[in-house]
């Protein structure tokens, strides 16, 4: 009887010490939380803002840098929302003594765009109302830089008055369709 009880306690003692942490691999942990605020970016830049057609005769059609792009705009947005690139002329095309050339004589075209969004690629007439050039994709909206390259063409009317003409073109980056 005594031996039986003694063996019983020896077994329990062994089980206890084998299961004790002193015999197992120990582990301690500390959890830490980290935070950061990634700021919003929403920006548009142009590399060449001067469109110079030089001297053009009445009735002549001139394309700036035929076969290549004339200037490019770079757009960045990381806001996670769809954005639109639009273009328009701010004033009418004004020449000497207030003479005008119709806005439809002045055209633009997107030669290339590196984004994965939707681009308008045909020749388009300028207007005073902003017209759509590019619609972003989800990939564009995470901060990927989108570069859009333009060509410009002027079809001078046959009876345009001689002199210096000028106008201003606006490129817009907007979240409004």
């Amino acid at each position, binding site marked *: 009887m005594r031996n039986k009880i003694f063996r019983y*306690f020896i077994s329990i003692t062994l089980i206890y010490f084998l299961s004790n942490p002193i015999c197992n691999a120990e582990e301690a942990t500390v959890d830490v939380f980290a935070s950061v605020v990634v700021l919003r970016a929403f920006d548009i830049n142009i590399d060449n803002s001067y469109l110079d057609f030089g001297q053009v005769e009445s009735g002549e059609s001139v394309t700036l840098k035929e076969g290549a792009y004339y200037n490019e705009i770079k757009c960045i947005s990381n806001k996670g929302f769809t954005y639109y690139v639009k273009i328009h002329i701010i004033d009418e095309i004004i020449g000497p003594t207030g003479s005008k050339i119709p806005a439809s004589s002045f055209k633009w075209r997107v030669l290339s765009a590196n984004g994965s969004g939707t681009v308008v690629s045909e020749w388009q007439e300028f207007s005073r109302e902003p017209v759509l050039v590019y619609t972003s994709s989800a990939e564009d909206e995470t901060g990927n830089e989108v570069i859009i390259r333009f060509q410009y063409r002027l079809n001078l009317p046959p009876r345009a008055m001689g002199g210096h003409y000028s106008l201003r073109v606006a490129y817009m980056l907007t979240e409004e369709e």
Partner: protein
Amino acid sequence: MNPVRFLIVFLLIVLIIPKEVFATFDMSIEGNYKTIDFGAMELGEEKKLVERGGYEHQFNFTSDNGRTWYFKAQILRPFTSMTYTIPPENFQWIVEELINGQGILSASVSKPAPFSKTPVLIYTSAGTDEAGTEVQIRLKYRLKIPENQTAGAYTAHIRFIMVEEL
């Protein structure tokens, strides 16, 4: 021995003797701050957190088990905001200083090493590290925001581990 006496002695040994008698195995982080706040950052920006005298966190380790122990770091959740994530490798730890340690750092002092979803080794103990000498490791942190990262407030969950298994 009388079985009853034996039982009493047994219970005294097993239940009353505190476990602390056996061994010390402890890791603590200095102070109460268990946060790493990088504040506001721009696309492509890189920032190191060294605001507290050249380091961000000090970890204190004590073990007298006589066995090798390891200090590891693991990123349980990378910087996340809604469905957007900053790659874990853009978040790095840097050992600024090792104090009293006789073991081996897995990356040189001041050399950044990336966090990972699986535990990565920072330090392996040796010598007096395993005989009760307190070892201190000071860390700072580095974060680089990718050029293409959606704006928002991001949070990450990191776990530091002191363990006797590699």
